[in-house]
Structure formats: structure tokens, C-alpha cells
């Protein structure tokens, strides 16, 4: 166990030096080492095969065969579970239509990859004729290792060469023949699934670990949401990714790369459900500011802020709830009623000190997504804060619940008054008390997130209480969320699910606690947590396949 637990001590100090060097705007006092926390247990997360997500498929093709390859848009859709595509990828199957789509995509891609202007990328030899087994073999050897994220066995190569030779003979063209072999590589489960078998861990008798090549994939898909690059595959081949130092070196390299920004954006987008903003449906008659560009722009704002926090400012995760900093384009700026920093595209800006907007609670992404098409929803917003940001499990409503709300009237002008029944009927209030009061604090933002003081002519009361912490307004709610003891453990739990592609078991709660200790010790720096997770036994040890 020694080599695994020993990772706890040096990791953060080494990292802080590295990360603070690229921090442009925050000057932190030099940290003192935290008191030792709970040890990371030698406990593997669940082990199994993950389907490549649509994004991972596309990014793999572009990275390996070239950015100019046009990939068909129709691919088996992702099936998120527990909020994450990565977790759904561990459970869902590929449908018959999906198999058809992958076949069609494979030939479309193979044809482009072997077009005369591109084939030199794949072929280091000039074929001697319609068939040239040695030339085909060298192409499959190099390409196969990238696509399958491991070297191909001799018999696998033999078969690809035989298939291509047969096709080349039938069609009378070497390159056309090769297309069939590449199409086979692309349709193989070895490409479409990230599989893991593990191996006995010589350092931990009785336990298993991921192989060096499997670690390359795990690391790369976790941090980059992408297939490993050549350097990582070379490290895998050298066998260094099963060692602490080799793994650390590569994890730090990946985190320092701009590609880590893509990976982090993907995580945050899934964590907050921001991909749904593409489908945002709002009544344009009621919401004259709404247009189809709003949803994607709102997502971009939130992702830019997260990216800025993690990679540029190296800021405290909790401050995402309270910061006045944000990134807007002219459309969002007009909806926020602030000057646009750039005439076109996004730019950084600060909300005024007296603005009610604080952090991601004030983002249009949060406010519009958790609303109805024609109105705001205190319940949906409250549920998002509770279940997504604080990991509080809210049961489904009882199936026979009377969910009708009274219509607005002179007696009941505001949503707070209309929701009163949910909060007084014990059958409803048991859950709604955990959600509605938080959502009511956001009622000063309408169904698309624009600020309003009044509803039906009456001032909106945004005051409330978060688990015993009273607040007067949205700013107060943001501060209470920032300080809530469940906020950061919830973030750790979600990052863990994303990284391991499985929901944690009860036993793994110990791992989460130990990781949270390290997160806190780092000053809630997300990159530090990512590194700690990548180096943890949970990420490196494997179980017998599920």
C-alpha cells in the first residue's frame, strides 16, 4: 500500500507551486501544510467498459485522422445517467440503428482519410501494386494503436491485412482495399468501447490495478475527454503509468495543456446539465428578449467562468457562487442590462457592486434552464440548487399529489403566495420546503433570467432561509450557498462519478471524504482535486470486471 498512500503528502505542495506560477490575478499567501486528513483507502472504483460518447468519438477521429475529416452527425446518442454521459456510457448499449450509423460513419471517414490529399498521413510507404501486405500492415500497426488505444496483436494485424487485400483485389485498388480495413478498425468494439481488464498489482498483493495502457485511456478521457495522444501512449508503452511518478508526470502534463480546458468544460457542462440549453424552449411572445441564440450563449458564459476559475485564476471553487466576474456577449449583456465588453463575441466583465447577480445563481443558464417555457419556477430552481449543487436527494413526488397551483389573482399576485399550499400541506412540504424557499429567492429573475422587482404589480420578496442561515436577498442566498457544508463534498462526489464513470458505492464514501480533505487543503482548487483524483487508488486500482 505504501506507494499509493505516499501520494498524499507531496502532491499538493508540488502542484501549488506549479499552478500558482500560471495564476495571473490572485496572490495567495504561501500555504501552510494542512493537518493530515483521512487516508485514501486502497479501494477501487467500479470497473467496466464505457461506450465512447458522441463527443469522444468525434474528437478521437479528428485527433487521429485530421481535423478536416467530416464526421456524419447522426451517431448513437449519449444516454446520460446520474447526470453524466460518462456514467451512462458504463451501462447503456448500442442499438441496432446505432450499429448502422457507426458502419456508415466508418466508411465515410475511411474514404476521406484515404483521399489522395490525405493518405500520406496514414501511409509511410508507397504501395507496390494493388496489394502490398507490408505497406498495409505498417499502416494498420500505427493507426490501430491510436484508435484502439493499445497495440494490435499479430493475429489482429494479420486479419486486417487479409481483409484489405481481399477488398483491394476485388476492387482493383490498394487504397480502396485499405478503406475496408480502416472501417473495420472504426467499427470494432475495441474502438467504440473503453474496456478495462486490469492486472494483478505486484505492489498490492491480492489487489488488481489498471494496466499502463488502460491508465493512459483513463487519464486522457478524464482530463481531456479525448483519446490519448502519442506521448501518453508512449508513456503507456514504457510501462510508467502504473508507477506513481510516471503517472504524476503525465497527469501534470495533461492538466497544463489547453486540452484540459476542453475536458473541464465538458465535465462542468454535464454537471450542471448545460447541454440542455441547446433545446431551450421559451414563449417568444412573453419573452421578447428570447431567441435561439440565448441558450448556447448562456452555456458559454457559465463555461467560460468555470474555465477562468480553474485555469486562469486558480480560484476557490466556492467563489463561483459569489463572484461578480462573468463573461458575456452583447446579447447576454443586453439581457443583464450591462455594457457589452466586446462589440462581438464574449468578453470579461464585472457586475456592479449593487447588482443582484452573483455567481452562477445569477447566470441566465441556471435561471432559464430551471424554469417553465412561459414562467419561472421556484420548485425547479430550488431542486437544482438542492440536488445538483448540494447533492440532496429529493424523492419523486407522490404519484397522486395534487400539484395544481392557483392562478395569479389580486389576492395571490406572486408565486410565493401561490406556492403557499405546497409549503403548508404536510404531504407536499416534506420535500417542497427543501426546494421552494431557495427558488423563491430567485424570483426576482423571470423565466429567461431577466431581472424584475415586481410580479403582477407587487414587490417580490426574495428573503428566505438556507438550513438555518437566514438571508434577505439573492446575494444573501449566494453567500449561504457558498458557505454551505455540502457544497464542496457534492462537487467532489460529482467529479468522482465523472472520472470513474460509475456512481460511488457506500464503501467509497471513505474515498470521497479523503479526497474532500485534500480539496479543502488546497483551498478548493479544482485542478488540485483533479490531480489528487487521478493519482488516487480509486482511479488506479481495478476490480474484477463488473
Amino acid at each position, binding site marked *: 500500500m505504501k506507494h499509493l498512500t505516499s501520494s498524499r503528502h507531496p502532491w499538493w505542495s508540488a502542484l501549488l507551486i506549479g499552478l500558482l506560477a500560471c495564476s495571473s490575478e490572485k496572490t495567495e499567501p504561501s500555504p501552510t501544510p494542512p493537518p493530515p486528513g483521512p487516508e485514501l483507502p486502497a479501494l477501487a472504483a467500479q470497473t467496466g467498459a464505457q461506450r465512447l460518447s458522441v463527443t469522444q468519438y468525434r474528437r478521437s477521429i479528428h485527433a487521429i485522422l485530421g481535423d478536416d475529416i467530416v464526421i456524419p452527425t447522426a451517431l448513437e446518442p449519449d444516454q446520460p445517467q446520474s447526470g453524466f454521459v460518462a456514467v451512462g456510457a458504463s*451501462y447503456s*448499449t448500442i442499438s*441496432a440503428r446505432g450499429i448502422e450509423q457507426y458502419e456508415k460513419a466508418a466508411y465515410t471517414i475511411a474514404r476521406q482519410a484515404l483521399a489522395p490529399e490525405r493518405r500520406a498521413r496514414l501511409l509511410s510507404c508507397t504501395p507496390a501494386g494493388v496489394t502490398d501486405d507490408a505497406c498495409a500492415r505498417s499502416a494498420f500497426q500505427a493507426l490501430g494503436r491510436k484508435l484502439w488505444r493499445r497495440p494490435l496483436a499479430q493475429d489482429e494485424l494479420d486479419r486486417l491485412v487479409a481483409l484489405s487485400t481481399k477488398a483491394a483485389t476485388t476492387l482493383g485498388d490498394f487504397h480502396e482495399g485499405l478503406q475496408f480495413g480502416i472501417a473495420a478498425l472504426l467499427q470494432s468494439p475495441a474502438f467504440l468501447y473503453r474496456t478495462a481488464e486490469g492486472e494483478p498489482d505486484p505492489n498490492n498483493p491480492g489487489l488488481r490495478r489498471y494496466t499502463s495502457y488502460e491508465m493512459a485511456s483513463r487519464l486522457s478521457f478524464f482530463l481531456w475527454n479525448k483519446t490519448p495522444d502519442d506521448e501518453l501512449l508512449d508513456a503507456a508503452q514504457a510501462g510508467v503509468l502504473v508507477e506513481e511518478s510516471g503517472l504524476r508526470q503525465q497527469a501534470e502534463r495533461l492538466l497544463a495543456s489547453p486540452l484540459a480546458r476542453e475536458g473541464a468544460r465538458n465535465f462542468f457542462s454535464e454537471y450542471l446539465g448545460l447541454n440542455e440549453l441547446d433545446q431551450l424552449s421559451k414563449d417568444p411572445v412573453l419573452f421578447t428578449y428570447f431567441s435561439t441564440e440565448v441558450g448556447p450563449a448562456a452555456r458559454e458564459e457559465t463555461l467560460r467562468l468555470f474555465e477562468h476559475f480553474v485555469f486562469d485564476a486558480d480560484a476557490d471553487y466556492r467563489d463561483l457562487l459569489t463572484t461578480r466576474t462573468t463573461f458575456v456577449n452583447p446579447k447576454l449583456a443586453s439581457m443583464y442590462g450591462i455594457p457589452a465588453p466586446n462589440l462581438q463575441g464574449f468578453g470579461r466583465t464585472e457586475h456592479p457592486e449593487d447588482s443582484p447577480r452573483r455567481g452562477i445563481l445569477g447566470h441566465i443558464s441556471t435561471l432559464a434552464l430551471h424554469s417553465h417555457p412561459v414562467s419561472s419556477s421556484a420548485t425547479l430552481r430550488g431542486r437544482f440548487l438542492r440536488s445538483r449543487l448540494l447533492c440532496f436527494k429529493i424523492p419523486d413526488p407522490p404519484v397522486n399529489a395534487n400539484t395544481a397551483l392557483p392562478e395569479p389573482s389580486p389576492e395571490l399576485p406572486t408565486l410565493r403566495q401561490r406556492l403557499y399550499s405546497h409549503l403548508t400541506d404536510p404531504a407536499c412540504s416534506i420535500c417542497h420546503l427543501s426546494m421552494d424557499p431557495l427558488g423563491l429567492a430567485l424570483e426576482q429573475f423571470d423565466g429567461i433570467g431577466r431581472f424584475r422587482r415586481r410580479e403582477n404589480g407587487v414587490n417580490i420578496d426574495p428573503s428566505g432561509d438556507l438550513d438555518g442561515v437566514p438571508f434577505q436577498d439573492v446575494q444573501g442566498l449566494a453567500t449561504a450557498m457558498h458557505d454551505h457544508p455540502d457544497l464542496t463534498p457534492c462537487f467532489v462526489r460529482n467529479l468522482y462519478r465523472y472520472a470513474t464513470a460509475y456512481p460511488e458505492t457506500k464503501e467509497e464514501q471513505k474515498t470521497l471524504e479523503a479526497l474532500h480533505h485534500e480539496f479543502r487543503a488546497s483551498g478548493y482548487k479544482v485542478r488540485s482535486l483533479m490531480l489528487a483524483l487521478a493519482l488516487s487508488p480509486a482511479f488506479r486500482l481495478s476490480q474484477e470486471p463488473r
Partner: protein
Amino acid sequence: MAIRMLPRRTLLRGLLGGAAVSLGLPLLDMHLNNNGTALASGSPLPRRFGLFFWGNGVLETGWTPEGDGKDWKPSKVLAPLADLHDEITVVSGMKVYTGNTVPHGSGPAGLLSGASLLKEDTDSFAAASLDQIIASAIGGETRFRSLEVGIQKTDKCMSFNGPYSMNPPECSPRALYERLFVDGFVAPGSGPKIDPRLALRRSILDAVSDDAKRLQGRLGAADKIRLEQHFEGLRSLELQLKKLEENPPNLAACKAPADPGEDPGDIEGRPQLAATCRAMGKLLAMALACDQTRVFSLWFSRPVSNLLYPTASAGHHQLTHDEADPQPQVFEILQYILGELNLFLKEFAAIQEGDGTLLDHSAILCTTDCSYARAHSVENYPILIAGSAGGALRKGIHYRSVSNENTSKVSLSLARAMGVNLASFGKDAGMVTDGLGAIEVG
């Protein structure tokens, strides 16, 4: 021609919830006999199964027709289907017995799979859905095992091969058109497709299957089952390619439809459901007439769908909960959906096959995700059946269950009407061994 072996997939008990499946008479030679009542080989015309599903249930009252047997009058809600009175059977008073714990989910799981939702993940069925149980038995006869289409744009539906194994719907009429009638479609009367690439593609699929097999040996139990589903897809695709190399079926009613053009876009934030549904209806009807598949499901809207319908002041789901009784806007939405169902069924009724129509040779189960939406109830479950599955089912009647019979009985009757000889349908409280005699013929 040899009779095909029982498709391997039907033996996957893990995926089919232990249902014992056997195949009815294979339908091989598609030439009609002189009377047009059957195929020249003596086999009857193929039977087709379909599912038409919408989200968010119905109203508390106004669904159940007056009168019983052949003397029924369409209720207020069913009025849009009045002119199809003789083609439709209404089954009322049935109940889902597999629990009602997940609003909008428990009902369809009970009706379509005879089981509760998967405990670990209530987004997934725990067992195969009726359309896939039928497709497992008869899907191997046609180019496509089954087709799933969505009218509301979505990646999800309730067509399941088993746990976590959903068949995502095709929501673009244009993409469906290309898949059916452009990529590798062979028009009736023309010769088989001669293209050396077809055989090469099949050899690649063989190699990919070998990869999958090799991999399967190294995986854990749960992933082995997932890969089994992958094999099914590969086998289906091989079969598709093989079909292209055979003589196409000579079906008089089959005419490749016109290109549907660009997909209908949203208008002022509201999707054009009617235009999409009509385009899909034409394509599906012709897909069946051309015997490209015998099983389909159409997902008009998702459970809990909050779509903005053309004149509604709020999303559908929100209205079912918040609109005051008698919920006039929810009623309007149901009229809209059932109006589209009417046009959809008329596409089928308009296609002559022998001495009947495509609708006669089909059984289309039309249903939703609960009964009364505001209460998420699963009693008096909304069930319509259009067509008679080639005379196997009675049509034009209203059967009113007075004893809250199990909805699984309907599913069992439908499977048997399709020639799938199930001994039972469903599990635990959802299990029945008898169908609903009142809707069966003979």
C-alpha cells in the same frame, strides 16, 4: 427456401425477461396469390405491429366511450377518431399492477413490459418492451428489425431490448427517408443489388463480430450482456445487407415515397408536430407496405413533455398540473394529438393490400404514460388498438373491463395476434397467462 432458424436474440433470456418466445409461420415469398388474400406460397399477408405513444396521459373524465361492444359512441376526447370508429377497438377499465412509484414511467413500463421500472435507474425498463418482444420473433424477416421514430425531438423513448438497452428514435423525417428509401433500397420488381462492396462490408462485419466475441470473453457479466446487444446490432446489419442481394419482395402497394424535403423547423419556439407526424406517417406506412419492417413505434411526445402546442399558454406537462378544471387547454392538446393519430391511421387505411388494407393487416397500440395526468393514475389506462392484425383481433368495439383487469392481458393478446406464441406476459404482479379474450378472434 429454408425456414430460418429461430433468431438467436429470442433466446436471450436476460434481455427478454425470461419470456418464452417462438416464431409463427415464416413469411417468405411475397408474391400474392390470385385472390390477393394471401401470398402465393399460401402464407397469409404479413402482420405488422405498431405503437403510437404520447406523453402526459388524458383528462380525468371524457375519455371512456359510451356503450359497449359494437355500439359505442366516441367520447368527447375521442371525437377526432369518430370516422375511424369501425377500425378501432377501445379497451377501458384496465389497470397497471406493477406499482405506481414513478410518475409517467410506471404506467408505460407496466403496460409495455409487464414489469416495474429498473430499480437502480428508473429511466430504464427492467425488461423488453412489447414492440421489441415482437421484433425479436418476427424482425428477422425484414430488412429492418424494427423502426423507432419520434415526433418531438428526443434521444429517448420506451422501446427497450432489456435493462439500459433503449432504441433511440429517429426524429428527422428526412433522415428516416434516407435510411429507408435511399441507402440501399431496392425497388420492388427490380433485380437484386449487384455490388461487390456488399459482400466486402459483410466480411468486415464478420471480423468486427469476432472482435466483439474475443472481447466478450474478457469482460464481466454485466458488460457481456451489453456486448450481446452489440452482436444483435451487427447481425441485424448483416441481414440488411444480405436482403439487398436477394430479389426484392414484389409488393403491389410498394412505391418509394417522395423525398419529404427539409425537416419542419420550429415556428416561434413551437415545434411543428403536425407536419412532422404527417411526414413520418407517410414514410412509416410505405416502409411497412414495402415490407422493410413489420414492427414500429412512434413516440409523438415524451413522458413529462413540456412542449408548447400551437395555441397553448404553457407547456403541456405544466398545464396538466396547473390548469384549472375542466382543463380546456389540455383538452385542446389531446384533440390535436388524436387528430394527428387519425391522419396517421388513414395513411395505413389508404394502402390496399389484397382484399384489405395495410391497417387491416396491422395492430397499432395507441396509448400514453398515465391515465389522469394530474394524479398520474394508472387505473382505467388509456388503450386503443387500431387494425385487426390480419383478422386476429376484433375491431370496432369498446371493451369495458368492470374488474380492473391487468393491462398485461392486452399486451399478451397483441403479441399472440402477431403470431408470437408467448406462454405468459410480464413478471410478478404484472404476469398474466391469459390474453384479453374479448378482443381476440376465435
